[in-house]
């Protein structure tokens, strides 16, 4: 199936409905008799709630009900899905995350009360008449202040603001390597807090059928089964057979729609209370202060080198912001998705990393495109560049000298992971050639004539995708398995429906997965349908995040297909009156090689459902198989990005002159979709590097609470990208795939900042934090000139 199979740039099936405005999103659903929920949120970052007077709201026009935490006494707190242990073996502090504030509010936007009314406007009008008596407390916003003795506690029952104090690696060996090193490079940096901004705001509709006792939650989720498990088992006490979670078309997630949010609980629970469907849709202002934010690390990193520029040891210390409460996967992001990536592409023999997770009076922080891996890559590629500058080495050469070599795989890093395959120099070489690295000096001279500063920056990243195997992540604190499931249902006339636990919210699964099926079964691409997002339809699946869908979800599909083919061979053998061992399956035909005997896939399907000539005594009728796949290891996409910038020293404006990406994603199913994914990731990474900065004032008010102040990247802010690939196949899944969703956002921030600092080196600037806004760049130049 060359034109629709693996490796073909097939146009996305789903785009026809999306570009026609015919997508079906949660907010497009309106259920008969529904009421609208408005959530009253805290205007304060930290305050005791003395009392809540809802009497006027209850009497408001169109009001159906008003709820506060007192009404929800039977409802549990929002659970955290990952438990991290501190260096001393103690479990992380896990304060209750109430659905509605219980006695205290802890961030601007913390839900306090909910009003249900016939219309959204009526609900909002009534909510404005709720009188909350707040006793405003000092807010703790800055992590470095939060960890000092005597700082205000976000959670009184925790006592300090430290959630955990975690470490990874051999500290003694690292300290010794540092004490004997030829050179030590040091860097303090900040990984800036980001606000996700999926184009579709979150939405949730709860529905209750009192006749059957069945609850349904329609929600903007990346993983409906995870929400069903968390909400059903831990929050509302609903048995799973009485709870359906449905995530239809979802307009972008970037991680922010993985997590279980209070609003999902509120609408589901309230639907049962008022026996009517309850709908809530966030407006954009609410999204800014209620979607989990990303990143937000303050880090010191040191690299020890010998006289030849070989890395001897890496040491890192980080404060990671958790925000006011632990969001679903927050604890694992700065630990197991961060510390374990610190080897990067290098054979650094010893590494030690320690991370203190910190509570502050800010919106909870959790996984955002890349989740921990961008933070690891950023600090590593920044310190490698600092070391190159310190040692007077070329940026490419220092990396080349320290790369893990192709013959060293599988490679055990000093931070727990085993990389299975890779060829890092191949990606570096390709990227350097595309970027005309050798010709940089002449371009720099041309910029100089125009009064501009030109710089070039390299970042060689690695990421770990798939998050597996389940027994390993379980031992690291995951409270869930991280396999994926798929059911392949062959219909009697040979078309195929695939029910996948992966969830598509922009990735193009309906196309990519159909290509895999088309290739494996040799059937027409258009006769394959990919079904996802509904716990009533799909097998128990873990959803989409961490660039896992093709590597884990795709493998589950392949494994189910293998079972289909195996059964098909049995049926074919019976029909062709030969032994099963003689049958081969190729190009959609079951054949007996060397003969003219064959049966088409569709004939076998029909025989399975109309089993008139069928080995009924040995084989069940029907052709439907399910597979659960638990990966043996992470997958390890890697690559090198080269960014070239031109800085206007008069204004501090950074223009990205060119950006070249070379990625090794293993086997690529659909090059066009992969290129699109890389483009999107690069834009988000460049957004982090140049534009996006979540900003709070000292009182915990969100200053960047709208698009007037939070800068999303626009098309004009980025160049035309050059995107290319190299291929080393993943060794432990049958497709040889690695995953591509996050790479762009992981590798690009350090490439951009290294390029800017390369440009600014001629005016004496040696460090710069993201986002490198014009003001910040201008200030850095000015400060360097003053000193």
């Amino acid at each position, binding site marked *: 199936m060359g034109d629709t199979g693996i490796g073909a740039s097939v146009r996305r099936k789903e785009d026809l409905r999306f570009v026609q405005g015919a997508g079906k999103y949660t907010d497009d659903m309106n259920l008969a008799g529904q009421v609208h929920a408005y959530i009253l949120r805290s205007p304060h970052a930290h305050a005791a709630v003395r009392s809540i007077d809802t009497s006027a709201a209850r009497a408001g026009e169109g009001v159906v009900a008003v709820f506060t935490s007192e009404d929800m006494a039977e409802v549990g707190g929002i659970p955290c899905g990952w438990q991290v242990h501190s260096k001393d073996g103690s479990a992380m502090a896990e304060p209750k995350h109430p659905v509605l504030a219980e006695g205290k509010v802890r961030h601007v936007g913390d839900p306090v009360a909910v009003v249900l009314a016939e219309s959204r406007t009526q609900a909002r009008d009534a909510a404005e008449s709720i009188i909350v008596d707040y006793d405003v407390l000092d807010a703790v916003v800055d992590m470095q202040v939060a960890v000092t003795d005597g700082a205000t506690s976000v959670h009184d029952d925790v006592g300090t603001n430290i959630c955990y104090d975690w470490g990874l690696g051999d500290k003694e060996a690292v300290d010794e390597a540092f004490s004997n090193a030829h050179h030590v490079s040091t860097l303090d940096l900040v990984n800036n807090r980001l606000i996700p901004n999926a184009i579709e705001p979150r939405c949730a509709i709860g529905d209750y059928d009192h006749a059957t006792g069945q609850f349904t939650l329609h929600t903007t989720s990346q993983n409906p089964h995870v929400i069903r498990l968390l909400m059903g088992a831990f929050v509302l006490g609903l048995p799973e057979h009485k709870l359906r979670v449905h995530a239809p078309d979802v307009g972008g997630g970037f991680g922010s729609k993985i997590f279980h949010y209070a609003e999902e609980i509120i609408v589901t629970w309230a639907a049962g209370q008022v026996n009517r469907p309850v709908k809530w849709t966030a407006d954009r202002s609410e999204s800014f202060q209620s979607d989990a934010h990303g990143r937000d690390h303050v880090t010191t990193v040191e690299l020890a080198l010998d006289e030849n520029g070989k890395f001897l040891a890496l040491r890192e210390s980080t404060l990671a912001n958790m925000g006011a409460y632990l969001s679903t996967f927050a604890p694992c992001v700065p630990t197991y998705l961060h510390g374990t990536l610190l080897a990067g592409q290098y054979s650094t023999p010893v590494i030690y990393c320690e991370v203190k997770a910190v509570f502050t009076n800010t919106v909870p922080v959790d996984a955002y495109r890349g989740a921990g891996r961008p933070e690891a890559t950023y600090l590593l590629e920044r310190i490698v560049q600092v070391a190159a500058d310190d040692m007077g080495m070329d940026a490419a050469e220092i990396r080349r000298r320290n790369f893990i070599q192709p013959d060293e795989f599988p490679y055990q890093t000093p931070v727990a992971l085993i990389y299975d395959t890779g060829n890092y120099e191949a990606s570096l070489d390709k990227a350097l050639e595309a970027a005309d690295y050798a010709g940089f000096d002449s371009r720099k001279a041309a910029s100089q004539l125009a009064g501009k500063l030109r710089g070039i920056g390299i970042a060689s990243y690695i990421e770990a995708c798939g998050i597996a195997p389940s027994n390993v992540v379980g031992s690291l604190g995951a409270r869930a398995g991280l396999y994926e499931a798929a059911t392949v249902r062959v219909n009697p006339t040979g078309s195929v429906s695939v029910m996948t636990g992966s969830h598509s919210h922009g990735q193009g699964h309906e196309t990519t997965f159909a290509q895999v099926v088309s290739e494996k079964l040799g059937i027409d691409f258009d006769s394959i349908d990919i079904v996802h997002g509904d716990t009533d339809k799909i097998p128990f699946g873990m959803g989409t995040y961490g660039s896992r869908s093709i590597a884990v979800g795709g493998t589950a599909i392949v494994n189910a297909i293998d079972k289909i083919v195996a059964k098909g061979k049995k049926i074919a053998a019976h029909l062709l009156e030969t032994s099963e061992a003689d049958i081969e399956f190729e190009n959609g035909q079951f054949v007996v090689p060397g003969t003219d005997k064959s049966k088409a896939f569709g004939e076998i399907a029909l025989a399975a459902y109309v089993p008139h000539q069928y080995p009924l005594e040995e084989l069940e009728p029907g052709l439907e198989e399910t597979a659960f796949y638990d990966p043996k290891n992470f997958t390890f996409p890697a690559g090198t990005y080269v960014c070239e910038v031109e800085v206007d020293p008069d204004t501090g404006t950074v223009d990205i002159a060119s950006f070249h990406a070379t990625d090794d994603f293993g086997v690529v199913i659909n090059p066009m979709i992969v290129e699109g994914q890389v483009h999107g990731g690069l834009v988000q990474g460049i957004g982090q590097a140049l*534009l996006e900065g979540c900003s709070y004032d000292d009182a915990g008010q969100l200053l960047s609470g709208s*698009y007037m102040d939070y800068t999303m990247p626009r098309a004009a802010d980025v160049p035309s990208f050059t995107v290319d690939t190299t291929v080393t196949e993943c060794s432990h899944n049958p497709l040889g795939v690695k995953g591509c969703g996050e790479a762009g956002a992981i590798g690009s921030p350090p490439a951009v900042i290294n390029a800017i600092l390369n440009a600014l080196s001629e005016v004496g600037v040696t460090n710069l934090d993201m986002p490198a806004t014009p003001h910040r760049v201008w200030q850095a130049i000015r400060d360097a000139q003053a000193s």
Partner: protein
Amino acid sequence: MYAFDYKRPSNLDEAAEMLRNSDDAHLLAGGHTLLPTLKQRLASASDLVDLAGIDELKGISSADGVVTIGAMTTHAEVAASSEVQNAIPALADLAGGIGDPQVRNKGTIGGSISNNDPAADYPAALVGLNATVNTTSRSISADNFFTGMFETALDDGEIVSSVSFQAPSSAAYCKFPNPASRYAIVGVFVAQGSDGVRVAVTGAGGSVFRASEMEAALNQVFSATSVADIQVSDEGLNEDIHASAEYRAHLITVMTKRAVDKANG
């Protein structure tokens, strides 16, 4: 958004009467500030009086070197107008750089100047070109029209009908945009007119102002080098998460230099 009555008069007298007979009416022009503010419930109105149906507020005319732009003329219309492009290309250029295409197709010159956002572009053009604001009751010079942050000389019930611009011998506008909102962090409009050089600065202060030191230097020699070494005081300038007062002061010099170079072609 709180409830309000929507009214659409067909002439200025009718509009004035609606304003008089209402508790708390707001005029609606392009609505780019008013509607988001209403939606966020940061403002409310008993009535919105939509000026979109009043033909006498629309259109661009040109006579004797004076270009007159009706208050309800959109930014896109100004940008595309051959009269404006011929007489004052810098004004067409400024209008074509406001916001984005959606904003330019709805936003109006009358709405912009009546709102007097400290970071709006048009106030710099009006002051830089020594324009005249014509209202339902009088004519006001641009220097006297913009009185402070979101404040103008307009009386209650007074409606801007048009703005008249004398064509300068040369002019240019350079803006350093806020990266998020694309409003001006600093915008400088430079013009050589019959009364000498004017340098009008928007975005940097509470309201548009003239940079007199720059004007004096440029009246000597109209060249970027004349202003290159002038350091503007940052006292009283705006400060926010995007730019310090010091940075804004610096940008005034940079944008003035660039505007002069641009005016000199």
